[in-house]
């Protein structure tokens, strides 16, 4: 028997190995005195280190494991975005957990594992590898959401998330089976070769695309797969909710972009109809439901669903400008959404219970800088110039019009106007209402988190004025398309 060793190329997964090793080391840390800062320190160091490693692979298209994993510029950019999000989440978590005095080792280890899962999802070129990454991510998040076992809401959130998540994973797996049935292989690149030889079953491929979209639609929380999001965000620790509301979306959009790019020439209009339906439904249902919310986190959850609707528009013309527009939107979404959740974390430090929008009333008088930052994030999420959110929306609408989807843009603009109401209500409550005593005394050391929020707010405005640099990087990353 001749044995041929597979072409592993360990360099291609060095960042993930680093994350795994440091995560595993964290598992064995106990929350003794004196280690309070060491654990998040190690976690952030690991994320920063892998974040530094990833760009060194830029432009090399390093492939590993017989090309099951390929680190092209596309995946490097997405992975950097995931890393940045995770770093912010670690910083937020430190402040969130310090108040609650829990054992932290496992918490940060799970965040690192989640990053590994997302990296694998993004860099995977084979649906099975992508599924593997998705499961690493999901399993970590299921535990993180229910990390505080003694809080009922948290348990409810994690059970909902777990059951629905497991179900959507199963659908994704079924999609892989159909994909295999259509093409006889599970590699995404196989679609292109199959189209050239015209040797595939179109019905099976469409079924596959639909099922894969279902699985990923759950991860990005787009309508009709969004039902878990509000309850889960609200029940989860807010630091986890911040990660949950941004990072998996980045990874899932990377996979969606790859799949849509590969599949859409074969399935003609069907994929775009699916995406249009998801996008329009997300925009309408997300925005309109957000109007009625009283809880801050719940409002942010529905706003996230609406934002996903806007992002999905970018998938309609992926091979033209849609891809870069989507990536730009995602990177700006990190800034504003993480910022909004960061402010929520600072406020939640005092109030242990559910944070209502009305709890913020009159906070501007006591916390002028936090309120200013929150206002900037809200304005940006609403899409008003001169913030980054405006340019992101503008860019994505422009691509849709160029691709001939004018009516969708009309819907999107109307929905943007609707969204002004609930985003501005937060600002109005903070500045115009009578001061309530509830949040007037934010205690604890918030220096680092305040600096981070300041940077985020500054960046939100900066990239709104000068988006050119980011777009330049993105178009370089997508040059291969």
């Amino acid at each position, binding site marked *: *028997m*001749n*044995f041929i*060793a597979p072409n592993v190329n360990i360099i291609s997964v060095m960042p993930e190995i680093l994350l795994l090793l440091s995560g*595993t080391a964290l*598992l*064995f840390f106990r929350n003794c005195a004196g280690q309070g800062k060491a654990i998040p320190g190690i976690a952030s160091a690991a994320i920063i280190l892998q974040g530094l490693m990833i760009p060194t692979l830029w432009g090399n298209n390093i492939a590993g494991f017989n090309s099951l994993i390929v680190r092209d510029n596309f995946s490097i950019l997405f992975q950097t975005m995931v890393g940045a999000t995770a770093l912010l989440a670690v910083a937020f978590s430190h402040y969130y957990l310090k108040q609650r005095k829990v054992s932290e080792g496992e918490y940060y280890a799970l965040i690192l594992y989640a990053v590994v899962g997302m990296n694998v999802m993004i860099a995977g070129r084979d649906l099975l590898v992508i599924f593997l990454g998705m499961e690493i991510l999901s399993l970590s998040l299921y535990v993180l959401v229910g990390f505080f076992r003694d809080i009922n809401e948290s348990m409810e959130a994690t059970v909902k998330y777990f059951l629905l998540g497991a179900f959507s994973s199963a659908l994704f797996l079924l999609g892989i089976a159909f994909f295999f049935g259509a093409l006889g292989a599970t590699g995404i690149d196989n679609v292109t070769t199959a189209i050239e030889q015209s040797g595939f079953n179109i019905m099976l491929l469409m079924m596959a695309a639909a099922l894969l979209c279902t699985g990923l639609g759950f991860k990005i929380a787009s309508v009709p797969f969004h039902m878990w999001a509000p309850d889960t965000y609200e029940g989860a620790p807010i630091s986890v909710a911040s990660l949950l509301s941004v990072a998996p979306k980045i990874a899932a959009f990377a996979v969606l972009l790859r799949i849509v790019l590969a599949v859409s020439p074969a399935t003609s209009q069907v994929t775009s109809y699916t995406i249009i339906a998801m996008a329009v439904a997300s925009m309408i249902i997300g925005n309109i439901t957000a109007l009625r919310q009283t809880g801050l986190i719940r409002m942010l959850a529905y706003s996230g669903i609406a934002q996903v609707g806007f992002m999905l528009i970018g998938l309609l013309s992926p091979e033209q400008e849609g891809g870069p527009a989507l990536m730009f939107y995602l990177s700006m979404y990190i800034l504003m959404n993480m910022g909004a959740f960061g402010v929520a974390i600072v406020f939640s430090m005092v109030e242990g219970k559910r944070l209502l929008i009305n709890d913020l009333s009159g906070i501007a008088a006591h916390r002028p800088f936090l309120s200013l930052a929150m206002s900037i994030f809200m304005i940006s999420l609403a899409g008003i110039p001169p913030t980054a959110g405006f340019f992101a929306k503008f860019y994505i609408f422009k691509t849709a019009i160029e691709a001939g989807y004018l009516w969708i843009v009309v819907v999107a603009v109307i929905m943007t106007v609707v969204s002004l109401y609930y985003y501005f209500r937060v600002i109005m409550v903070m500045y115009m209402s009578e001061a309530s005593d509830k949040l007037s005394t934010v205690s604890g050391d918030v220096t680092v988190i305040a600096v981070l929020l300041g940077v985020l707010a500054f960046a939100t405005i900066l990239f709104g004025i000068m988006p050119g640099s980011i777009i330049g990087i993105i178009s370089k990353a997508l040059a291969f398309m």
Partner: protein
Amino acid sequence: MAPSLSLFVYTLLVVGTAVAIILLSHFLGKRPLTDEKTIPYECGMDPLDTRKHRFSIKYYIVALLFVIFDVEIVFIYLWAISVRDMGLFGLLEMFIFVGILLVAFVYAWIKGGLTWES
């Protein structure tokens, strides 16, 4: 005869015997004379509660650990019969694989998953 066919015949034989024994005892054996005889045994007293038992979470943890290790053993078997051909590469791969597993094992140990008294 093909190996699978012999196996099939043997399976039929065994299952048939098992069912035959049950049926035989069903027809040959007596019926219970009184209803009291069919009450579950509890040292001569009437049973205190029904079968809605709670059981220790430890059994669940053992079952979970078992699933992890049992699945891994399937991989180890395939590796074991071909380790000569794979040489050093196979050895390293398995060391990494088992190493990852042992980390999980040690973690479960430290967390008290393997201890029965609490």
